[in-house]
Structure formats: structure tokens, C-alpha cells
């Protein structure tokens, strides 16, 4: 029979209806809410394509032309008329009870598909919004997808004979869903069998499956069915149930008021969980389920075995690597392919692993004249806690390395002298250079990166100064250690945190100034009740348009524009070239202003308090030193301490400010990329915004020069999106290729989590875990901020928080710097803190010793 109704299909019919079809039919038979439809059998395909007449796989080899010939034949041949009649009959049977014309989802179901040992996921086509008029063509396209280059290559690599694989086609009523998603009955990354993970977003599920949407995530305890975690994403795009025919792209923007709210209710999560458990119980294996809600009615669209359990082994490079902390402490997500490509080429000593930047330890070991184990070297390279680090000098290696070290000194000494006393604001001239590079149409994105960081123009005075300043500012590490040692030697009774406090409070640190300027913006708004109400009540991305209509908002608008002119290149995750900058979309700035309006604290008061503490400490140091021999006469100890202190402050500021301009350089590169993207979309070489970030630059060049087109990159973009989603779920290890003992931060270790003290003091309070301040940035005064990382966009949260616990960071990370400026305790590098601590837990933070103690778990429901 060429067509079978789906409710007549059973799991034994896999040879007739393919794996997907057999699964769906069986689900329907077992009472699962599967949309109605029918299946065009695999034999129909076999007859149409004459699979018996195909040559064996080893004769075909890797012949892409052969595939193209078969595809063309399938598409161009007309279906037999009796078959067309049967399709029409099946359609009429489904249509009869409907008020409106049915549209279909046409899905491929290969006979070798959806089996536990192999996954063809995504390689065979699916079509949505198919009417009866185009159904025949879509069926042929599904058949043709069996001969796509990707599917063909996959079968070759898996040793599957092409003649043996046939294609059935499932024609199902397309559910016009308001919410859809996928559910895994085991964690596909960790392999944990104790959870059910659901990801959901608005509209049709295609956007999630294709990786174009960041979905909300719900984690349920499998045994208790208790909802244990909710992560709400910023859902910018959706594929709507009803298409607007005037729109070129199916991908549409989600209305602002829906972007950051939960796409599922608790009841809906319970419904999904219940059906997921039933599916797993029935099939006897972990399931990957696609589902949809339409008019609050649940439908199961697909259920198949999860084929990849646990973290797949990526192709790891040989050697030993450590995570590059200066980038990881600002941004823990994997970089997109284009960012990896452009950044990776310019810094060849770095390697991209799991989408993150790693340092090759082999380079460091060659030049470091210390006897260090792999663990110690990685701790040093990771800028870990080197307080208790007591390396032994390797004299033979030092003797051998001495000439090399001297050459290193010769190479860098001029640079060190140049950057020793740069006046405040000197690097601001980089802004002019940035603008010239942006305005020059002849400069491509990678060339912009090279010019702004490595100085290819001989006559450009500022050139690569910001990179060089950043590189040489690492002297602060030694100066801080020296200051600490001097204070310990001369004033052993002094608090251990004295060095931290003495080196805080530097004027002219741009990221601290940025926080202050946002506070000033909030103060301007606060003076006017009407404007305050607008900022507090409206969605951030509508506030500016509304304010522009208010006559008395002109002062604020002018102030905001001035702020954006200075800081508009900043954003969250600013190392990622795809991140939208504040100049392009100021709504995150508005959201930060709103947080300041809601906060009771005053940053000026905090800064004044810290300044007073610092002054008191300085006087204490001076008076205590006076008791030492000859100090009253010459005062040399205090002069030394003042000198080292001022130098440390200078280099801390230099490092922080050079980073400000680095980000400006990245923005120039982003502007170039966006310009190229517009050109490529206009000429049809790319179809969707952001697709360009999933290509490498040479692929972009090929598109520009028409060497390749959309059909050459479509599948590539799709597979890289999928890979990016997978990498996002992978927690990057601190080291690769090195076996080191992981710090045990489990609750069994006395409920204590260990990290590195970045700002002194201690504090106890309720935790507030925030993963993304763009989505969830409400923190009450007195709560303790717990975050995976922070960058300057998180600054307003520090104002309200009483302390901070950060998963990835260092003493001089943004978190540490801002915490010291605000005089609040901060512990960084606390492994797993965002999973071990939940919002509402009572914790104690000791920023001096670097310890976080979990005192009491939250008793309230999931935050």
C-alpha cells in the first residue's frame, strides 16, 4: 500500500514507514497525543526511485555528481496519477472535520533512521506550512533529501548501504503552536539519569531545533517530578504558527513583553514531564521528544532515542593547555566560529578548545626557570591562587635560560619604559584611530583587527598601544606581592587585606567611572517622577522612544547620548563579536538605570566609606612604621611602601583601561562584519541575520566573491549552530591534557566552597544567583550576588549586593576590581558556585580567606 494512516502504524512497521513513522504510529496507538496524519510508505519511494537498480555503495564511492543526478531525477519526475489520487483522498479524510484548510508538516522517515546506534538527525528534510497544492512536491523533496551530500556522506562513513535505506514520508497535520520545544529524559551532556530537561520557546519548534533561538530551560527531578531549576532565556526570535506572507523570512521577532517571561506554566511543565516519563517507560530507553502546545492542548510531535549521551569527545589537540583566564573571567560562553577564526589567527599561541581560548603550557614551560609540576604551572598560568605557591628555582634551567631571559628583557624593556608613566586619558586617542578604521571601506574585518591591535600602519602613532599597555600592565602582580610582603615584614600585625585596600580607589578607572555615570543617569531620572515611572514601568527597549516624546526628558537624553558616545561599544559578553553593543541597543543601559532606581544604596556613599577606610589604614601604616628603627628620621620604609603602592595602582588602572579600548577595537571589527552581512543578505548569499557569525572568514570571502552561495553554507551553518548549542552546555575544564586534583567543593566538604579572595571583608546573607543580568537582574539590598562571571555590564548589581561570589575570576578581574572599589567582600574562582548555591540559600562570604560557607538551604520554591 502506498499510503497508510498513522493510527494503523505500529513499531514493527519500521521497514515500511521508517523509524520516525514507526515511532509516531506506535505512540499514537499507545494513546500519546500525536497529531493525525498518514505515511507514504518506503516501498513507494523504492518503486519511484527504482532502488533495486542502484549500484552498490563501493561502486559509487564519494561521487557527489551521482547524488545530484538522482536528486534531479526525483524532483523532475511526476508522481503516478493513482498515487496522487490517494494523497488527495487521505487529505480529504483529515480535512473533513476542519473549519480551515489544513497545513501539513512533511517529515522524512528513513528506514535506517532514529535507531539507537546511529543518528541521521537533521540530515533528511522536513517541510512546514505545506498545503495540499504543494504536498506532492514536498514529498519528492523529502525523498531527494536521502541523496543530499550530507546524508550520503554520513551513510558512507557509517558503512550503511545506500540501496538498503529507503525513505518513507510522514504527512501530519501541522500544529499551530503557541509554545513548543524539546524534552530529554536524561541529561544529554552529563548523561545523568535523574533529571528531565525541557527546553521551550514561543511559536514553532523549528527555531529551537535549528539553534536560532535561545530557549528557556526547565529541569525536573525525574523521581519526584519536582521542578528544580528554571532558566529563562532572552527569546528574541520565533517561527510563528501563522506566517505573514509579506515577510521574506520565517524568523520573526518576539514581542518585547514576551521575550523574558516564562514560555511554559508549571502545569504545562508537569504535562510535558508526565508524557515524557510515559514515553521513556514505553520505549524502554531515554527519549528526545519534540512537542507543542496549541490552545493549551499538548501534542507530541516526535519521540526518539537520545543517541548522544554524555559529553562527546571533541577532537582535542595533543598537548597541555590551560584556560585563558583574562578572557574566561569576562565571558564563559563558547565563542562563535567567526570570532574564533578572527581572534585565533592573530594570537597563534592560543588554541580554541570547546569554543574557549586556551593557553599552550608548552610555551610557558620553555621559558619559566622554575621547577614546576604540570599542576603548579597551570595554576600559575591560570593566575590562580599563587599566595601559597612556593616554586623552587631550577638553577640549571636558569643558567641555560639566562641568555634567553636577557633577550626577552632587551625586546620588552623599551615597551616597559614607554608604558611606565603614561598620562591619564592618553589612550583616548585610540578612539580617533578606531573611527578612521571603521570609516575606511577598504578595510575588512580581520584587517581591522590587525590594524587596531598589531599596528600595520607605520605612521599611526597610537597603533597597537592598547594591546601593548595591557601586556605590560601584568607587572601589577609582582608589585602587589611585593607590597604584601613588605607590609608583612614590617607590620606583621596588620590585617592580611591591607595591600588590597591600599591599592583600591584609583581615580580614572573607566569601568568604575562607567558605573558612576549610569548612577548619575539614574539620579537625573529620579528627579522627575513622570520620567521615573516611565523607566520603571515600561519595557527597557520601549523606554527611550517614550522618553523622547517627553519635553522634560531632554537633559536625560543628552546625558544618555553622551554616555553612549563614550561607552557605547560595551555590552555583556563583549569579547564575542556577535554581542549587540549598547550603541546599537541601549535597552540594557536603561535596565541598569532601572536597577539603580530600585536600589536604596548610593555608590558615592560606598566609595566615600571605602576612601575613609583607606585613609585610616594609610595613617595606621605610617604611624606603625614610625616605631621602627630610623623610620622617623628618614621615613624610607613609608616612601618605599608608597612608591610600590602607587606603581601597583598605576598598572591596575592601565590594565583595566586598556581593556576598555580593546573592546572598542572589537566593536570596529563587529561593525565591519555587520556591513558585510548586510551585503550578503541583500544578494541572497545569506538568509538570516547572525548566520555570518557561524562562518569562518574565508567562507565569507567566498560568498562575497560568488565562489560559493547559500546552498554551500546552509548545512554548515546549521551544524555549527548545533555544535554551539552543545558547547554552551559543556562546562570548560580549567586544563586539558593535564591530570590535576579538582578542588572538592561538594557539600560533603563541610558545606564550604573554596576560591580566591579578591576583596577583603566578610558578610552573611541570602544568595541571589544571576546567570544573565540582561534577563534576570533583580537583586535586593543585602543579598549576595552569585554569578558565573562578570563584566562591566554587571556593575550596577554590585551596588546593591552586599558581597559577590564569582565562578570564574581573578584578583584583578572586573568583579574583584569593582568589589574593592565598593568595599564589599568578593571571592572569585569558586568552582560550581552557581550550581551548588541556589537563590535564597544563606551563605557566609569571607573575601580575605577566599571561603564561602553554605549555612542553610533555601526553603522557598525555585527562584
Amino acid at each position, binding site marked *: 500500500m502506498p499510503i497508510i494512516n498513522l493510527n494503523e502504524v505500529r513499531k514493527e512497521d519500521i521497514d515500511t514507514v521508517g523509524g520516525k513513522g514507526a515511532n509516531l504510529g506506535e505512540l499514537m496507538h499507545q494513546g500519546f497525543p500525536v497529531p493525525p496524519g498518514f505515511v507514504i510508505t518506503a516501498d513507494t519511494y523504492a518503486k519511484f526511485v527504482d532502488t533495486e537498480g542502484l549500484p552498490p555503495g563501493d561502486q559509487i564511492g564519494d561521487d557527489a555528481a551521482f547524488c545530484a543526478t538522482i536528486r534531479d531525477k526525483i524532483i523532475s519526475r511526476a508522481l503516478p496519477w493513482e498515487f496522487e489520487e490517494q494523497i488527495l483522498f487521505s487529505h480529504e479524510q483529515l480535512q473533513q472535520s476542519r473549519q480551515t484548510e489544513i497545513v501539513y508538516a512533511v517529515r522524512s522517515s528513513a528506514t535506517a533512521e532514529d535507531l539507537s546506534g546511529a543518528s541521521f538527525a537533521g540530515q533528511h528534510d522536513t517541510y512546514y506550512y505545506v498545503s495540499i497544492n504543494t504536498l506532492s512536491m514536498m514529498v519528492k523533496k523529502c525523498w531527494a533529501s536521502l541523496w543530499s551530500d550530507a546524508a550520503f556522506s554520513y551513510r558512507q562513513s557509517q558503512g550503511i548501504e545506500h540501496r538498503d535505506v529507503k525513505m518513507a514520508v510522514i504527512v501530519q497535520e501541522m500544529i499551530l503552536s503557541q509554545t513548543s520545544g524539546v524534552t530529554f529524559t536524561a541529561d544529554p551532556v552529563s548523561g545523568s539519569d535523574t533529571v528531565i530537561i525541557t527546553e521551550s520557546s514561543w511559536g514553532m519548534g523549528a527555531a529551537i531545533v535549528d539553534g536560532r533561538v535561545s530557549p528557556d530551560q526547565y529541569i525536573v527531578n525525574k523521581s519526584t517530578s519536582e521542578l528544580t531549576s528554571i532558566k529563562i532565556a532572552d527569546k528574541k526570535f520565533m517561527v510563528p504558527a501563522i506566517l505573514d506572507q509579506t515577510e521574506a523570512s520565517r524568523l520573526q521577532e518576539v514581542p518585547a513583553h514576551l521575550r523574558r517571561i516564562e514560555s511554559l506554566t508549571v502545569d504545562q511543565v508537569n504535562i510535558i514531564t508526565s508524557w515524557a516519563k510515559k514515553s521513556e517507560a514505553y520505549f524502554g530507553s531515554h527519549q528526545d521528544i519534540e512537542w507543542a502546545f496549541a490552545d493549551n492542548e499538548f501534542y507530541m510531535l516526535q519521540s526518539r532515542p537520545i543517541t548522544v549521551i554524555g559529553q562527546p569527545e571533541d577532537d582535542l589537540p595533543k598537548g597541555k593547555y590551560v584556560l585563558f583566564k583574562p578572557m574566561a573571567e569576562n565571558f564563559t560562553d563558547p565563542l562563535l566560529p567567526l570570532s574564533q577564526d578572527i581572534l585565533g*589567527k592573530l594570537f597563534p599561541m592560543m588554541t580554541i578548545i570547546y569554543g574557549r581560548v586556551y593557553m599552550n603550557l608548552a610555551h610557558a614551560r620553555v621559558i619559566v626557570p622554575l621547577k614546576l609540576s604540570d599542576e603548579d604551572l597551570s595554576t600559575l598560568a591560570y593566575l590562580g591562587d599563587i599566595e601559597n605557591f612556593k616554586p623552587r628555582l631550577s638553577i640549571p634551567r636558569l643558567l641555560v635560560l639566562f641568555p634567553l631571559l636577557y633577550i626577552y628583557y*632587551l625586546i620588552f624593556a*623599551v615597551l616597559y*619604559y614607554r608604558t611606565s608613566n*603614561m*598620562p591619564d586619558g*592618553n589612550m583616548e*586617542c585610540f578612539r580617533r584611530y578606531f573611527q578612521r578604521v571603521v570609516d575606511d571601506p577598504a578595510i575588512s574585518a580581520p584587517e581591522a583587527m590587525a590594524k587596531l591591535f598589531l599596528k*600595520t600602519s607605520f605612521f599611526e602613532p597610537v597603533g597597537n598601544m592598547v594591546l601593548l599597555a595591557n601586556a605590560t600592565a601584568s607587572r601589577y602582580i609582582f608589585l602587589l606581592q611585593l607590597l604584601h610582603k613588605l607590609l608583612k615584614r614590617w607590620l606583621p600585625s596588620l590585617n592580611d587585606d591591607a595591600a588590597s585596600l591600599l591599592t583600591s580607589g584609583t581615580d580614572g578607572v573607566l569601568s568604575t567611572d562607567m558605573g558612576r555615570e549610569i548612577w548619575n543617569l539614574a539620579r537625573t531620572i529620579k528627579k522627575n517622577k513622570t520620567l521615573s515611572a516611565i523607566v520603571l514601568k515600561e519595557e527597557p527597549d520601549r523606554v527611550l522612544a517614550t522618553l523622547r516624546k517627553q519635553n522634560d526628558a531632554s537633559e536625560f537624553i543628552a546625558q544618555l547620548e553622551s554616555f553612549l558616545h563614550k561607552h557605547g561599544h560595551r555590552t555583556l559578553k563583549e569579547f564575542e563579536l556577535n554581542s549587540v553593543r549598547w550603541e546599537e541597543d541601549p535597552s540594557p543601559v536603561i535596565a541598569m538605570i532601572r536597577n539603580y532606581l530600585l536600589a536604596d544604596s548610593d555608590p558615592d556613599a560606598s566609595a566615600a566609606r571605602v576612601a575613609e577606610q583607606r585613609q585610616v589604614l594609610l595613617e595606621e601604616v605610617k604611624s606603625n612604621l614610625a616605631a621602627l628603627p630610623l623610620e622617623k628620621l628618614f621615613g624610607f620604609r613609608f616612601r618605599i611602601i608608597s612608591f610600590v603602592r602607587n606603581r601597583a595602582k598605576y598598572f591596575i588602572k592601565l590594565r583595566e583601561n586598556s581593556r576598555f579600548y580593546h573592546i572598542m577595537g572589537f566593536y570596529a571589527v563587529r561593525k565591519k562584519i555587520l556591513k558585510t552581512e548586510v551585503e550578503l543578505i541583500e544578494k541572497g548569499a545569506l538568509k538570516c541575520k547572525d548566520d555570518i557569525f557561524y562562518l569562518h572568514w574565508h567562507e565569507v570571502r567566498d560568498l562575497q566573491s560568488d565562489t560559493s552561495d547559500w546552498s554551500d553554507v546552509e548545512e554548515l551553518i546549521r551544524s555549527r549552530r548545533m555544535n554551539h548549542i552543545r558547547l554552551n552546555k559543556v562546562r570548560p575544564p580549567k586544563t586539558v591534557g593535564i591530570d590535576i586534583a579538582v578542588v572538592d567543593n561538594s557539600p560533603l566538604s563541610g558545606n564550604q566552597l573554596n576560591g580566591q579572595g579578591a576583596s577583603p571583608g566578610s558578610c552573611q546573607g541570602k544568595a541571589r544567583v544571576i546567570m544573565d543580568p540582561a534577563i534576570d537582574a533583580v537583586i535586593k539590598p543585602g543579598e549576595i550576588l552569585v554569578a558565573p562571571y562578570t563584566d562591566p555590564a554587571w556593575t550596577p548589581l554590585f551596588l546593591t549586593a552586599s558581597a559577590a561570589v564569582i565562578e570564574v575570576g581573578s584578583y584583578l578581574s572586573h568583579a574583584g576590581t569593582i568589589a574593592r572599589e565598593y568595599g564589599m567582600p568578593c571571592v572569585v574562582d569558586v568552582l560550581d558556585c552557581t550550581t551548588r548555591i541556589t537563590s535564597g540559600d544563606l551563605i557566609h562570604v569571607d573575601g580575605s580567606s577566599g571561603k564561602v560557607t553554605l549555612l542553610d538551604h533555601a526553603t522557598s520554591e525555585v527562584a
Partner: protein
Amino acid sequence: MMLEVLCFLLGVHLSMMLIASCYGLIDLWYRIADFIFPILVRILVVAALNTIFILWLQGTNQIAFISGQLFFLVFHIVIFWIGRILVIFLTRQ
């Protein structure tokens, strides 16, 4: 011999400082109006130091000192051009 080595190293160091001082003209080019005086003073002071040592040292010590200065000047120019070639190589990719 030891004294000559020390003179050589001193020559290297002062050459380094003189070059670094001259870079001030480039590094502060956009604010040259505000900083021309301190930059020039620094160049002059370091140049004067160099001159004093050249005039004060005698014989092989003087030769060693001048050699140190020339060595570093050549070294710096070579490193500069190696850096530029490296940059061109990286950006060509």
C-alpha cells in the same frame, strides 16, 4: 674585562632609555602640545647622560659602552622589523 662588560651593559641600558624617551614623541603625539616640554626634557637628560659617559670613559671601556649603545640600537631595529613581518604574515592569513 669585567669592567668592559659592565660598560657594555650600561651602554645597552642607556640606549634603551634614550629610545624609550624618543618614543614619547609618538606615544603622546595626539597630546603633544601638553607634553612636548617634559618629553624633550627627558630626551635631553638621557642624551646628556649618554654623552657624559662617552666622554668620561676611556679606552676599551669607552669602546665597550659605545658598542653597547650601537648593539641595542641595531637589535631594536631588527626586532621592530621582525615584528612587522610577523604581523604582515598573520594578517595575510
